[in-house]
């Protein structure tokens, strides 16, 4: 992904606004943009959801096939997550093989889902060692206006919770994919010395550092990822975790319904 040039005036304006507790779009520092979730958006997929976080627009599809388990996990289904930053979504996205940004995005979303055991993979075994359900999660970014980590993660959770296991493929009934946990990822961006949550595109482009924290329904931490060239102090990390837990509860309700 080639980077976009941000003018120094813009940079200074955003940093100053944030330092005084305001943001260009009028949000508070710990205020998340409007989130809308539309489940079952694509009827060719076993599960899907289109999620808009502000103007960031993400479509996640879940395809479910029958496959062979990995030899070291003969009683477990298989979960694979990929992300595509398609050129339609931003002038900075290029076609071609997945960029490091796309790979990191897919792996961070995958980790949140996997480590929380959102889907109990042992329930996806059909015949041990031979036949299991294979879940392909494909994250399609349609419009990039900042904070792909959270939008993609909400989309993935919503798509999984709407998915049906195609039992008819093995002569059984279709049944809902069992979703047991609801990890919610919340991303913070550090603009010089100020931390804002759910960064918009301009904030993200000038951010010094980024921290994503996924917490579960008990408020426990399930996954974290720090990014960009800046740093966080330990106290800042703790502050981000605290806010991620608090914001997570409200967001979980929206993704869940």
């Amino acid at each position, binding site marked *: 992904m*080639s980077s976009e040039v941000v003018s120094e005036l813009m940079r200074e304006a955003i940093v100053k606004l944030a330092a005084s507790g305001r943001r260009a779009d009028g949000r508070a520092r710990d205020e998340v943009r409007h989130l809308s979730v539309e489940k079952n958006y694509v009827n060719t997929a076993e599960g899907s959801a289109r999620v808009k976080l502000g103007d960031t627009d993400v479509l996640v599809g879940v395809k479910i096939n029958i496959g062979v388990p990995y030899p*070291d*996990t*003969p*009683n*477990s289904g298989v979960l694979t997550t990929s992300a595509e930053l398609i050129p339609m979504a931003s002038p900075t996205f290029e076609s071609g093989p997945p960029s*490091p*940004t796309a*790979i*990191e995005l*897919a*792996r961070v979303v995958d*980790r949140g889902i*996997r*480590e*929380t055991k959102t889907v109990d*993979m*042992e329930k996806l075994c059909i015949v041990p060692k031979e036949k299991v359900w294979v879940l392909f999660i494909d994250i399609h970014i349609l419009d990039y206006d900042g904070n792909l980590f959270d939008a993609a993660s909400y989309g993935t959770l919503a798509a999984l919770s709407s998915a049906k296991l195609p039992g008819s493929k093995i002569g059984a009934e279709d049944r809902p994919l069992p979703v047991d946990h609801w990890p919610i990822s919340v991303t913070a961006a550090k603009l010089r010395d100020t931390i804002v949550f759910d960064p918009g595109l301009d904030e993200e482009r000038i951010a010094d550092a980024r*921290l994503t924290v996924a917490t*579960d329904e008990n*408020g*426990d*931490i*399930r*996954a*974290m*990822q*720090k*990014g*960009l*060239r*800046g*740093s*966080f*102090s*330990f106290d800042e*990390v*703790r502050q981000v*975790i*605290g806010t991620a*837990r608090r914001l997570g509860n409200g967001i979980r309700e929206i993704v869940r319904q």
Partner: protein
Amino acid sequence: MDDIEHIPKQIKLVDDNGRRLDGRRLDELRPIRIEAGVLKRPDGSAYIEWGGNRVLAAVYGPREAHPRHLQDPARALVQCRYNMAPFSVSDRKRPGPDRRSVEISKVVSEAFSAVVFTEQFPRTSVDVYIEVLQAEAGTRCAGITAASVALADAGIPMRDLIASCASGKIAGQVALDLNKEEDNFGDADCPTAIVARTGEIVLLQMDGHLTEDEFDRAMKLSMDAIRRINEMQRDALRRRYAVTAMDEALGGDAA
């Protein structure tokens, strides 16, 4: 990784005396040995042994950035390539970058960008290569620790060395520096890299399950260990560059 079926699940990671499978206490590091300046061609290099990990790090640059369209007119790029040798793990790893190593390369590049004075070398690239020769959990931490020494060995201006270590949770207890079994069967792993003098966190990843309090305790273990690791990094550089009375007597140009 925690649902490997054919290995008995009752494996006991911490015994009744608080000792781990390899005999360590919960707050103990595996043995670490660092050597600076081990390769001829690179501008800087370092080798680290960390428990069963054997990792080489090398630095080239600042040199012309490739591909050229990545060049930044305001600063140098720090481009890291983390790579595992195919024979470094028990099941042969297919050569070349996989998704895991692409992600690690990215976060490690970002971590070093926080300390290198990149503004001093616009349009160039500082290339950091991390080669894992033998792996036993914690390779990215070992790689970062060695690469930091290699950057110093290359004379790249930096605010400070960064050192790296992981902590996590095994058998329900917070523990430092997980080994392979603990990584596979433990409850959480949280690698981190920190600027030694200031405590700034430049790399932080976590997967597994930690309460807020457990995270606090894990980070404190890591931060304490990182101070010790930083001392080993400095020692390695001192051994490489110290001038002894004997060198002086022989007329200087030793090493």
